[in-house]
């Protein structure tokens, strides 16, 4: 049995955190759970299931729709998970992504997280958190980064994006801790007040993160017993986006393409095994094989074809292949428009990946990438918010006609959304069940 088949077998007989078999709340719940997993398995491996699997992939919508602000969802974990449960019970999707999107507000506060603004910290209570892009890694730090990425992250990057982690900048590299002679010198920084203050904050932040993870984990577990699977194990990123999103920033990485292309390429090579390990590690820890890869700066309009082929795709492809080799299901999201990239990205192993499609034309995607990969999508955010129920149904019917034949299609919205008309969201799911039956 190959590793992917083994992963699906494990999903079909799920275990709880204690290692024992999950006790479903009813025989019906178990049957629904297994039917959904089988549907997803067929769709991902490009076979026709009994019907098109249906999912909804929201950002803040379940919480706003429950009458909460994003701020409440980020600070009240019980309220957050209760709203998410209600959302799932109402829609009954074939898979979900859990209630972890809001994240723990208090945790960000404790560590003085500067990379994002969130409700009460630079953003209004009812709005989603947003990234503060900057050059957190400067143009001259590539060599330092490549010498030891973990050292670079701990001593340079983390203190810049978390105010409370400034003490990290005083620590010695762990790789200096070699033998008895001199070993103690490496530990002197731990006696210094700024380092101790940082560790105090870490204990506090860790406790808060655990509290939140217990709440979302319990929520996922309960939903499983009710028959609603999540197969999402974690996430990783394309090496170009690792550098372009939060280290060098958009402007920084675009200039590096001209000013220091060799360093950029070398740094991305350095990141490939690290990003593979990130996804594989998450899948092993959670027992769930689907690894999300949000794709950003390879979209249409960012780079030329030649630049895409040279700078974006090769290392992303290596990450995808590495995940597949280790039994993961890469789940890249083509955020925005990707029509000009389809010919290039279709070059991947058949039946091993699932791609979220946002605004790219579904017919074009099916003809190219869709020949080798399962597609997830692509009801537009604007339609969910502004369209009529009938328009939503018509759109769902249209994309099922295009993308469902032969398998390899999961109906969903196209982009993680905050705001929508609830009737439209329900209509999308209902239409998927109605029109998605294979005959």
């Amino acid at each position: 049995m190959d590793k992917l088949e083994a992963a699906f077998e494990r999903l079909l007989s799920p275990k709880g955190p204690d290692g024992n078999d999950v006790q479903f709340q009813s025989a019906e719940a178990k049957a629904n759970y297994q039917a959904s997993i089988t549907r997803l398995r067929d769709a991902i491996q490009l076979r026709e299931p009994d019907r098109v699997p249906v999912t909804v992939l929201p950002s803040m919508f379940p919480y706003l729709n429950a009458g909460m602000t994003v701020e409440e969802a980020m600070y009240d974990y019980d309220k957050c998970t209760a709203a998410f449960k209600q959302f799932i019970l109402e829609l009954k999707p074939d898979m979900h992504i859990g209630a972890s999107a809001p994240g723990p507000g208090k945790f960000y506060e404790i560590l003085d997280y500067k990379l994002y603004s969130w409700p009460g910290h630079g953003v209004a209570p009812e709005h989603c958190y947003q990234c503060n892009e900057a050059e957190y890694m400067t143009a001259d730090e590539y060599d330092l980064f490549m010498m030891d990425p973990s050292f670079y992250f701990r001593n340079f990057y983390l203190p810049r994006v978390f105010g409370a982690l400034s003490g990290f900048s005083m620590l010695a590299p762990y790789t200096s801790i070699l033998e008895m002679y001199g070993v103690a010198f490496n530990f002197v920084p731990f006696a210094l007040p700024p380092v101790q203050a940082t560790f105090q904050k870490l204990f506090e932040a860790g406790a808060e993160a655990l509290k939140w993870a217990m709440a979302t984990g319990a929520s996922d577990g309960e939903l499983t017993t009710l028959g609603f699977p999540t197969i999402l194990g974690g996430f990783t990123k394309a090496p170009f986006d690792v550098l372009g999103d939060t280290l060098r920033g958009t402007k920084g990485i675009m200039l590096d393409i001209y000013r220091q292309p060799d360093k950029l390429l070398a740094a991305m090579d350095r990141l490939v095994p690290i990003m593979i390990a990130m996804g594989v590690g998450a899948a092993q820890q959670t027992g769930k094989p689907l690894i999300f890869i949000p794709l950003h700066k390879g979209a249409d309009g960012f780079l030329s074809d030649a630049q895409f082929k040279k700078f974006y795709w090769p290392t992303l492809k290596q990450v995808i292949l590495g995940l597949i080799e280790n039994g993961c299901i890469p789940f890249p999201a083509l955020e925005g428009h990707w029509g000009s990239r389809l010919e290039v990205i279709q070059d991947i192993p058949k039946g091993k990946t699932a791609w979220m499609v946002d605004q790219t034309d579904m017919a074009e995607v099916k003809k190219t990438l869709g020949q080798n990969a399962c597609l997830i999508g692509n009801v537009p955010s604007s339609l969910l918010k502004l369209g009529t129920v009938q328009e939503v149904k018509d759109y769902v019917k249209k994309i099922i006609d295009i993308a469902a034949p032969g398998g390899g299609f999961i109906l969903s919205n196209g982009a993680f959304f905050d705001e929508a008309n609830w009737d439209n969201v329900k209509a999308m799911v209902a239409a998927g069940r109605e029109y998605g039956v294979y005959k």
Partner: protein
Amino acid sequence: MSQQLIDAIADMREGDALALVKEMADSGVKPFVILNDVKAAMDVIGQRYEEGTYFLPELMLAGEMMNQIMAIVKPALAESAEEEHLGKVLIGTVKGDIHDIGKDIVTFMLKVSGFDVLDLGVDVPEQKFVDAIKTFQPQVVGLSGFLTLAFDQMKTTVEAIEKAGLRDQVKIMIGGGQMDEAVKEFVGADAYGKDAMAAVKLAKGWVGG
């Protein structure tokens, strides 16, 4: 005019371009001569962007080259006359949304295409747009937003402009992440632009440039 300088900038040879500018400035070439070459190069870059041979790396590098050249020639520029513009564009990311990259690219492309652009930044309340329309007197207003939350705020902004009696004075275009024609209808804007070149075309169409 120095074709050499125009080519160096347009072909993204940053080092050559800056060396040439320094050489020209040292040998007494007037700043406006150098700046005319820069403008000619920016026209070429704009064309190549429009044709789909240039993308963000080139726009970002062009912006960097322009800033560095300005820094070299600025000391000698103090007395030069005000530039003529095609028209005025007011731009900003609407309240609640703090994304700026798309807006900055549109601003840059409008500027190099000959527009006088006032950029209000991000998280801009509707009243600030209204006030700026009164003082800056633009022909075109560009509303930017990345998130679905921007749909409502764009609508609010257009309504505020209407309420202030200014709607007939300006054309309004929207752009960013989850925007499309349906959103344009919803917010009551005049047009949606998919990218920076679309924004330039829309603005030129409206001011007759």
